[in-house]
């Protein structure tokens, strides 16, 4: 299984749809046997990147190798080795659970006896045995998702691509789903999963944050928190709205996020005495609050890197305006 240190490597992966640049010059290195996350808002290019890595879309420029195979030239050979779970349920709703799995096992040309065994195995493993005669279209979100994952892993692929697998699933099912993913990773599969849930992203071994087609950060969740270019100040106030209003005009602050009565305030790392600055600001408006510096969580990282990019973008545009 460990033929490659990196199951996926991509250089300068770019996809343009007309004038829209969906994925912009993305470099990726996904280690074998790990769960790698793509974190980003809708439309940030997660799906497009996954489709390019599967060989479904041809990159406008750049290249990618998956399991040592070039996604442009060896797309067909790749298909036998990868599993892909689409964002939208893409199995056949008018076939039963068993029929769907049987169909997939035949398409992957498993031999006769293996087919039966494998389908039975999957039905048990994914807790679908008592649903085997139910039409896929009548399954609940969690059951559909389990069926889709069962179908994607049926041929024991070395890499699994999961495109927002938990978007239609309740929290309990999400937890179970991630348990299954860890089991699969333990068995040696590399898993690339896209999500817009922070808690899911935090579970990945490694992740890349995508924003408007650009990879703005990557690393392990801990690394990302350490290497973030912002510092996080947490403000706990009885009147968080007033606190927010008093802080929002401070130019040093890049973003304020409210979580109940807590405010998470982001400021560039180079800003000295940040806690002092916030305390002074609040005192000026006569607001009582606890202020302390905290370790950034993934959401802070996400907000910091995406805000930073927007600020840079705005700055660049202003410059362009000035020179013109």
């Amino acid at each position, binding site marked *: 299984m460990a033929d490659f240190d990196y199951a996926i490597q991509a250089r300068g992966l770019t996809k343009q749809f007309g004038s829209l640049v969906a994925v912009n010059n993305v470099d990726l290195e996904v280690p074998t046997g790990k769960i790698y996350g793509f974190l980003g808002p809708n439309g940030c290019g997660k799906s497009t990147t996954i489709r390019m890595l599967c060989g479904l879309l041809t990159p406008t420029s750049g290249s990618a190798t998956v399991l040592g195979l070039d996604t442009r030239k060896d797309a*067909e050979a790749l298909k*036998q080795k990868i599993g*892909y779970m*689409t964002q*939208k349920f893409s*199995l056949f*709703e008018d076939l039963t659970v068993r*029929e769907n799995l049987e169909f997939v096992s035949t398409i*992957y040309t498993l031999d006769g006896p293996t087919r039966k065994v494998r389908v039975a195995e999957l039905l048990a493993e994914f807790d679908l045995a008592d649903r085997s005669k139910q039409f896929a279209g009548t399954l609940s979100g969690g059951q559909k998702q389990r069926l889709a994952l069962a179908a994607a892993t049926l041929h024991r692929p070395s890499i699994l691509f999961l495109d927002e697998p938990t978007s239609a699933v309740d929290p309990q099912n999400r937890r179970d789903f991630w348990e299954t993913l860890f089991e699969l990773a333990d068995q040696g599969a590399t898993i690339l999963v896209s999500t817009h849930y922070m808690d899911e992203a935090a579970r990945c071994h490694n992740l890349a944050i995508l924003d408007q087609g650009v990879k703005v950060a990557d690393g392990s969740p801990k690394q990302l928190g350490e290497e973030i270019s912002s510092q996080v100040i947490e403000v706990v106030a009885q009147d968080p709205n007033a606190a927010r209003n008093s802080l929002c005009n401070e130019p040093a602050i890049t973003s304020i996020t409210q979580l109940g009565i807590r405010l998470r305030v982001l400021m560039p790392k180079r800003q000295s005495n940040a806690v002092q600055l916030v305390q002074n600001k609040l005192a000026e408006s006569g607001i009582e609050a606890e202020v302390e510096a905290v370790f950034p969580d993934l959401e802070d990282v996400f907000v910091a890197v995406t805000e930073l990019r927007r600020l840079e973008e705005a700055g660049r545009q202003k410059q362009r305006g000035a020179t013109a």
Partner: protein
Amino acid sequence: MKSLLRIFAIMRKEFLQLSRDRLTFGMIVGIPLIQLLMFGYAINTDVRNLSAAYVDEAETHLSRQFVSELTATQVIDLQHRAASLQELNALMDAGRISIGIFIPDDFDRRLISRSREIAQLLVDGTDPIILGVAQQLTAAPIAFDSQQQANQQSRILVRNYYNPERRSAVNIVPGLVGVILTMTMVLFTAVAIVRERERGNLEFLINTPVKTPELMLGKIFPYIVIGLLQLIIILSLGRYFFEVPIRGEYLHILLASLLFIATNLSLGLLMSTLATTQFQAMQMTFFILLPSILLSGFMFPFDGMPPLAQAIAEVLPLTHFNRLIRGIILRGADILTMWDELVALGVFMVVALVLSIARFSKRLD
């Protein structure tokens, strides 16, 4: 071997889905039945009982005999006796009658003198078929003078081959085979693939090792079976219900139909690679279906069409199939004597199949 297994997997899935899709299943049987009854009964180019009125200004024994003989042809159904030519015209304008008969007051004199027309036939010419039928009336015998009748008899004898009773069904039923197969085969395949694209199934399928030709063949095969089923429905109804004689070999009918079914399925596949929604696929089907019905010789004789229309007709598969199927069923022709039509259909099929395999990409861009 693996290839066969994958084709088998697609076919099996397709059959399973078809057996559960009641609407499609209903259409497979319903379309031939409805069309057959509709065209078989309603469309009748051998028109009878046209509503008619007459004005008899002569009111003689002969004029009354003349009217009753016209009625006896069963071509007209005399509903009114109008008082004047004006009233006759008014009835025609109002659309109450399509044929008016005017018998002038000097009818007897005209009949004897032979040099002048004896009566006037007013025909609603807006429908050419009625005009054609009205011509039959002019040949009606006028029996007051057997001598004259003999003279009037045409010197050319018409012998009606293949359809002596002049029944429209004989012409229409074999033609319907092609029309129904075009309608259903093209539509079913086009929609079947576009539907999978709309539902997202295709994104899953193209990520599996299945190859494009395998996918296409697996999709087409179940519809060949459906096409044959429809063929059996139409022909057995035609044979036992409309008494259409089947003079040719059944094997030849089967071969010609199989080729035509395959051609239409390929066309449907090609459309499915062009359409992005089921609605578009349906629109495209009608784009082929309408000219096929109008120009293929199903409704109007091919020879009567202007050169441009004939040129268009030649690039419609249905034109070639109509010649084949009418030849085999009605004239008992051997399929090999019409090899050029077979070649034409074959070319259509290969071109459409190659184009659709080339256009269908296992990629999304």
